[in-house]
């Protein structure tokens, strides 16, 4: 399959687009592989790609119960950032930012990475102090952050309500200028194509239902397309992780919750970067097609239904209108939900175990899209070397028992508040 470039587009256009080929194969599952990755979201596909590319492990299958990218990878609001306070998170996510910057070139696929800036608005003096602390911590970790005055915020995003009578006046903001958005589906397809070209089998419509034991070890998986064996099995199934580990008799520090997102009809350029409201939960950006994409809080109760309820819908829209009243004129096109793997400290788990032969990648809460490249990179390293990379060595499963939780907000073991 050829490389994508301007010349190939020109040539295919001349041929009336008759000769484009499928982007990845559709193989039958083999009986065995060196490694199996369960879950064909961004993380699973990135893991398979880096196993093949960085570690030379190409005899790999990605098993996806539906179609790749049909889970949270295809449902998120595409915000990519590394504006974290705690060093373990900052270093991990900044590694991700470095991978994002070169992803389109590395994968020869336009993932439309757009570092348009992520701006968090502060509405009080106290909130501004907290932001300043975070900005300083970011700078200490080598991540560029800028504090903006009220005027600078309103200048950057003119549709924010800057009037004297607004309920939550803008005090200032923190900007990560090199953060932004990427095209979520393209990321999935790019990693799928890259992995496939290196020999990875991407097997769709293949639900993993159970594990195959050999003594204390797991040596394979039972699936709706037959038994498949491998000595290394990585789980990257986001909100469905507890369902799989329950088959291993393991309970996780995870609850599954639904997060909703929304998009309006396409509109002329309205919002320049990514903006988050500081007095409620609302974040927004505008897609390249013009749709205003936004989201807010999780619904707040355990669920595996990929749909939410109207009270949160109303709450999110209310937050949006408080910040940007002109949004009330836009028509909503679609609304959907995805099942989040909410961890007990708000940080992820990339670890070996909990059973021999199993590797765990979970706990992304609602920030796992931006982690896609770093997560795949670190998970592949961990699976290949049977040892965590220093970038993910804090993301262990036993950190809860040992007291080394990584809790950005200091919110405690309540998944619904992370």
């Amino acid at each position, binding site marked *: 399959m050829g490389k994508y470039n301007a010349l190939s587009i020109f040539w295919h256009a001349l041929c009336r687009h008759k000769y484009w080929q499928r982007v990845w194969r559709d193989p039958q599952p083999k009986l065995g592989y060196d490694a199996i990755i369960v879950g064909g979201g961004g993380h699973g596909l990135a893991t398979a790609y880096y196993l093949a590319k960085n570690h030379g492990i190409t005899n790999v299958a990605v098993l996806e119960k539906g179609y790749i990218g049909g889970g949270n990878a295809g449902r998120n609001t595409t915000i990519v950032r590394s504006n974290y306070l705690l060093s373990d998170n900052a270093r991990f996510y900044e590694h991700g930012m470095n991978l994002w910057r070169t992803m389109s070139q590395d994968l020869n696929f336009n993932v439309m990475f757009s570092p348009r800036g992520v701006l968090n608005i502060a509405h009080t003096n106290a909130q501004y102090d907290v932001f300043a602390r975070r900005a300083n911590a970011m700078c200490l970790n080598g991540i560029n952050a800028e504090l903006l005055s009220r005027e600078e915020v309103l200048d950057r995003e003119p549709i924010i309500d800057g009037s004297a009578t607004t309920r939550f006046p803008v005090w200032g903001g923190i900007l990560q200028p090199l953060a932004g958005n990427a095209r979520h589906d393209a990321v999935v397809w790019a990693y799928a194509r890259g992995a496939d070209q290196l020999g990875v089998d991407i097997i769709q419509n293949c639900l993993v239902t159970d594990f195959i034991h050999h003594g204390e070890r797991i040596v394979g998986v039972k699936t709706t397309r037959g038994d498949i064996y491998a000595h290394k099995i990585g789980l990257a199934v986001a909100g469905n992780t507890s369902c799989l580990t*329950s088959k291993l008799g393991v309970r996780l520090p995870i609850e599954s919750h639904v997060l909703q997102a929304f998009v309006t009809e396409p509109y002329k350029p309205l919002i320049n970067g990514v903006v988050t409201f500081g007095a409620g939960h609302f974040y927004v950006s505008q897609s390249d097609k013009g749709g205003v994409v936004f989201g807010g809080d999780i619904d707040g109760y355990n669920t595996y239904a990929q749909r939410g309820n109207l009270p949160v819908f109303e709450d999110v829209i209310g937050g949006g209108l408080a910040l940007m009243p002109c949004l009330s004129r836009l028509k909503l096109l679609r609304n959907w939900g995805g099942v989040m793997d909410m961890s007990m400290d708000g940080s992820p788990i990339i670890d070996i175990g909990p059973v021999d032969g199993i590797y765990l990648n979970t706990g992304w809460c609602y920030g796992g899209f931006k982690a896609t490249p770093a997560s795949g990179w670190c998970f592949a390293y961990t699976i290949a070397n049977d040892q965590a990379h220093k970038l993910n060595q804090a993301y262990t499963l036993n950190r809860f028992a040992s007291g080394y939780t990584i809790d950005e907000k200091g919110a405690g*073991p309540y998944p619904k508040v992370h």
Partner: protein
Amino acid sequence: MREHTEFTYGEDANRQKPEIDAPIEDWNTYIYERDNVAGYHMEYWHHAFGCRAWIKVKRDTQTHAILWVGLPQENPEIAL
């Protein structure tokens, strides 16, 4: 029939609080680990914007269907 907005979600009602002098592992299990079932889930809800009572609800986490509602000390008489 009450509005959803009158209630806030509490937590999994099957968690058993260990004795105060129980080993640390039991406390770890209690505080951090969850069954997180896909299916019937026994859970607490707070009638926060109503009579302020806590209630126990058996709900299907895959469909949101509510199968049983009672007070915290109650349990469904028949297995649902």
